[in-house]
């Protein structure tokens, strides 16, 4: 299991990285944490001729507050997220999710930018970003643009990124104070992708759900936003019947593959269970 040969580039700015990607064309791939790409290269399922390592670029790592949004640099690792007080305080669902991604070593290297940008339906952050209404800052030969996470994912490993573009930051509107949240992930063991996972962010008012967003991980070839399910719970006190209805609505949009994690029927069914459990736990946390 040895990668094929390639040339290594380590630009020091995003602009240089973009220039490299444009000039090297299809045979070049950006390298962030490498924990998706390098295993693929070892199996020679990916054989890029050039790797553009983003680790040398200053200014695209770290978490900062920008008015009512929180901006996460693309090269921020999962470990950085776990260590960030700002994240624990303002976006605790990110902390909860980062903890169930891969394992400790992978979290030191694996980046949030890589997790959201490569379009792997098994990654946990994309559904979460859709749930939170995040947008991605993309820098390319034509300049910088912003794409909302909900529009970014088009198919497995197929996203809105144009050739030469690099995802540099994730911008997340800070959720309302007192919001409830939960990321429920069913997996076979530490290090596995989700058999099914659901992200919920909601607010409660007078014992009823006031606002709600629900995201689903690894239950289709892209992350999903379960809009109908969210609509069903708004205005309710999350009684059993409503939860079941919401789960059923979420299951409607799921189309998971049958794999070692289980047959389709199972993965959909536990997808529904994850939605119910996440809703309950989020509601219990809402202030």
């Amino acid at each position, binding site marked *: *299991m040895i990668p094929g040969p390639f040339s290594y580039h380590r630009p020091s700015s995003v602009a240089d990285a973009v220039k490299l990607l444009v000039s090297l064309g299809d045979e070049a791939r950006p390298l962030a944490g490498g924990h998706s790409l390098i295993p693929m290269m070892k199996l020679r399922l990916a054989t890029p001729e050039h790797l553009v390592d983003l680790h040398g670029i200053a200014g695209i790592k770290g978490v900062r507050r920008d008015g009512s949004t929180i901006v996460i640099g693309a090269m921020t690792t999962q470990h950085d997220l776990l260590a960030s007080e700002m994240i624990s305080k303002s976006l605790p669902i990110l902390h909860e999710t980062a903890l169930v991604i891969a394992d400790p070593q992978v979290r030191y290297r694996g980046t949030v930018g890589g997790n959201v940008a490569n379009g792997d339906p098994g990654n946990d952050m994309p559904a979460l970003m859709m749930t939170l209404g995040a947008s991605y800052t993309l820098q390319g030969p034509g300049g910088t643009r912003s794409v909302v996470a909900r529009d970014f994912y088009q198919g497995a490993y197929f996203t809105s990124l144009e050739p030469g573009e690099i995802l540099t930051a994730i911008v997340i509107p800070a959720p309302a104070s007192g919001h409830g949240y939960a990321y429920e992930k069913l997996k076979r*063991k530490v*290090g596995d992708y989700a058999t099914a996972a659901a992200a919920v962010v909601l607010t409660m008012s007078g014992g009823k759900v006031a606002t709600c967003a629900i995201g689903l991980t690894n239950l289709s070839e892209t992350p999903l936003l379960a809009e109908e399910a969210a609509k069903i719970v708004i205005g309710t006190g999350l009684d059993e019947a409503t939860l079941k209805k919401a789960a059923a609505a979420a299951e409607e949009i799921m189309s998971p593959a049958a794999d070692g994690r*289980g047959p389709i029927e199972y993965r959909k069914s*536990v997808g529904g269970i994850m939605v119910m459990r996440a809703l309950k736990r989020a509601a219990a946390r809402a202030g």
Partner: protein
Amino acid sequence: MNDMAPTREQREAKLEGMGCKRKRVEDARFTQGKGNYVDDLKLPGMLHGDFVRSPHAHARVISINSEKALKVPGVLAVITAETLKTVNLSWMPTLAGDVQMVLADGKVLFQNQEVAFVVATDRYAADDGINAVEVEYEALPVVIDPFKAMDKDAPVLREDLVGKTSGAHGPRKHHNHIFEWTVGDKDLTDAAFRKADVTIKELISYHRTHPSPLETCQCVASFDKINGDLTIWGTFQAPHVIRTVVALIASLPEQKIHVISPDVGGGFGNKVGAYPGYICAAVASIVTGKPVKWVEDRIENLTATSFARDYHMTTEIAATKEGRVTGLRVHVLADHGAFDACADPSKWPAGFFNIVTGSYDFPTAHLSVDGIYTNKAPGGVAYRCSFRVTEAAYCIERGMDILAQKLGMDPAELRLKNFIKAEQFPYHSALGWEYDSGDYHTAMKMMMETVKYADLRKEQAAKREAFRRGETRDIMGLGVSFFTEIVGAGPSKNCDILGIAMFDSCEIRLHPTGAGIARVGSKSTGQGHETTWAQIIATEIGLPADNIKVEEGNTDTAPYGLGTYGSRSTPVAGAAIAMAARKIKAKAQMIAAYRLEVHEDDLEWDIDGFRVKGLPEKTMSMKDICWAAYNSVPPGMEPGLEAVSYYDPPNMTYPFGAYICVMDIDVDTGVYKVRRFYALDDCGTRINPMIIEGQVHGGLTEAFAIAMGQEIRYDETGNVVTGSFMDFFMPTAVETPHWETDFTVTPSPHHPIGAKGVGESPNVGGVPAFSNAVNDAFSFLGSTHIQMPHDFWRNWQAAKRLGAVG
């Protein structure tokens, strides 16, 4: 007072002999990164070999084109079956009396089969080379489902065997049939079933899995063209056997072959057999005159070398309505993959599966096993167990639970009712074994009292009511398992490998200053032999264990031994060590008698030396005897203090144990939680309790993994779908339960120190405990048997089938 003589306790403690929780000698190097594993070896000019493997499970090889590969920088040679034919090595014999392709000869028979061997200057160039070899295949229909292998129109897998109506183990009844093996009294057993009040019948499958030690299989072969010597460093559990195999198949003189097992990173049965990688590395070294390293990667390990289990056991038990078992009938369909490469003693095509009567006094039993070929990897190794003993234990322990359910009896009570009684030992089983010793009732009752078994059953009953009322979605299961193992292969009267009796050996040489070296025919793969073997010697001859160096794994220096697997090290090599020590002690006694000027019979042993009977102050320590052995032995005696023992065990040993698993399962997700696991083991005399406990923890963890998800699974076209540690369930510290261990001691009456072996017991007993827990949890919903592995989705499917989820 400073000059006070040490007390007896102090003298005992100083030895760190048997029974001491001695810290391991090995750990100084392992904790500092100074172990010597095969891949750490770097020889001048060393080359690397890597395999081109088949993407198909069954295909004809139309052509192999190496042209492009040979142009890859660093690639020196591409070896194919055609190359190997020139040295008559394109096929090799297996330990089970079959033959196996070293490299694809005309066709491939399983996915990832070895097709060509690329030799290059380093591992990177070798990998580039394998990607440049062009192989053209013509796909053939596959046989994956073992139950279809003997269909009339099933594809012919082994064209080399066409027309051969008998194999190494008798007649073949189909072109994909390997052997039929029967044991027991069929007529008597059939009669028992006719007369029975109650019978059960169930197909109990034990899925295909893999030992997968953390270090994969690997070797370095180095041929010295001038002297004609071939040295092979490898991850071998049985280095001497490898040397003999190489001598036989490569027609090299055995004294010119040097096999060395350095530190081995876990074995679990994976490293017993001979693999194409070893042969190809050796041939490549002979051809190039340079050392050649071959290191398997993890995917290759999981998909090509030595699977385990894949036994499909149709199990029937006859009993009276009071719950007395009266007969056992088992038929096994054994899926051996493309070649029969089981690592069993040669005369035992299904290993010791005839231990399947377990811990119970069956008046009669009958067993038949049909081995068959499929398009899967060859192997059938004993993954942390004696040969096919986990399969047998699973079969009977699941069967007893099913019988209990049918009788409406508690599974523990049914077992107590049918155990072989302590006074029945030595016990002759209906399928031909002589159990050496046991006290099953005591062990079982101790387990039941410790975990408060009756209370657990009450709690379970209450939980079931709560589940029925809709108050909980959790169901609770109690998995009882009482296993009897058969280990220590084995007596020469019935155990051999390729004609070599399965003895083991030890050579002890003591030095003048009261120290010494012991060389042993076994080979530790993590069990800590350097520590425990010295403890046996310390107790036997009264020198501190710290003074005894233990060496294994080098066929030039170690006496011939059959290696470490099937929990045979302590029963066989351990006995050889004690016997060699006793030979030394006998000579030491003569020296002491001479020096003390008394008759030998007037001496008695006292911890660390001899003393004159009735004159306790007249003593000679072993340390002093060592010195005397080199300067003042009795007239006519040879100097020195050295002994060799080759130990042919008179019988196997029969460790046993009582295990229980308490498990909760969430029916909505199938997620289980092991709330408690208690394991009581009786391995006879205990040499190092710390190491025994560690062995039990490890074996239970492997049992947990196997029962709950560890499976080599093929899709219908023969692709392995569990080829990495992501999909092949390898639990981390988070999933692994907490283990409670306990013990009783029933020594083996025929073993010199009464020890029975323990490393594999927890795997043998653990798997049925987990599976019985799952099955017990679901039983109140109307289920009789749910097949392993019990991963989350299968639990959920069971719940759904039984109407517990909508």
